[in-house]
């Protein structure tokens, strides 16, 4: 069940990144509600997952899902650049973050 919570936490983080896109486009109440609501759900599920899973692994999986998902959403829903160099550099950051969280 903890893993289900963790995956949900990661997916809600992607929702939070979608909220950031919505706020970037239009600063109205519904955009901010999606942004803060999604991140609040994400943190709640992360906390639930951490009751049984080790902190480092939880953070790593959570950030991994959130950043990869957020990048894909940006490229395919919001027409962000699909330049391979950009994808490569973002991948470097994701690998580094996941690595640092796991080894903590």
């Amino acid at each position, binding site marked *: 069940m903890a893993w289900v919570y963790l995956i949900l936490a990661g997916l809600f983080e992607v929702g939070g*990144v979608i909220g*950031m*896109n919505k*706020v*970037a486009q239009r*600063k109205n109440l519904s955009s901010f509600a999606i*942004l803060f609501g999604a*991140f609040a759900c994400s943190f709640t599920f992360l906390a639930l997952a951490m009751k049984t899973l080790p902190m480092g692994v939880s953070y790593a999986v959570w*950030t991994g899902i*959130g*950043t990869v998902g*957020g*990048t894909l*959403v*940006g*490229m395919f829903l*919001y027409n*962000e*650049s699909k*330049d391979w*160099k*950009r994808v*490569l*550099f*973002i*991948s*470097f*950051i*994701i*690998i*580094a*973050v996941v*690595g*640092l*969280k796991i*080894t*903590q």
Partner: protein
Amino acid sequence: MTKYWLLVLLAGLIEIGWAMGLKYAHTIPFWIGVIALIVLSFYILIIATNKLPVSTVYAVFTGIGTAGTVIVETLLFNEPFSMTKISFILLLLVGVIGLKMLSSEKETGDA
């Protein structure tokens, strides 16, 4: 453009504060401070997304927060720096600097 990158850097530095705060927050005023910092860092990020792609901003923000937390905790708790940690932090720097250079390529004027 550089100004917006500095905002992402600032938001990342604030994230280091609240990420560590989350671990040690035990009293109500402390929690209020942590929540205020979370809101502030996101407020600054949103300004940055006016000019930079959201996923670039978010990846860099997460990266600075993570690497910064590792560095600060190592300095505070005298943990030895492992080669693994240093390698990951260098890889992260390559990613951040690379993204910054890519965004500068497309700049017209306001560097």
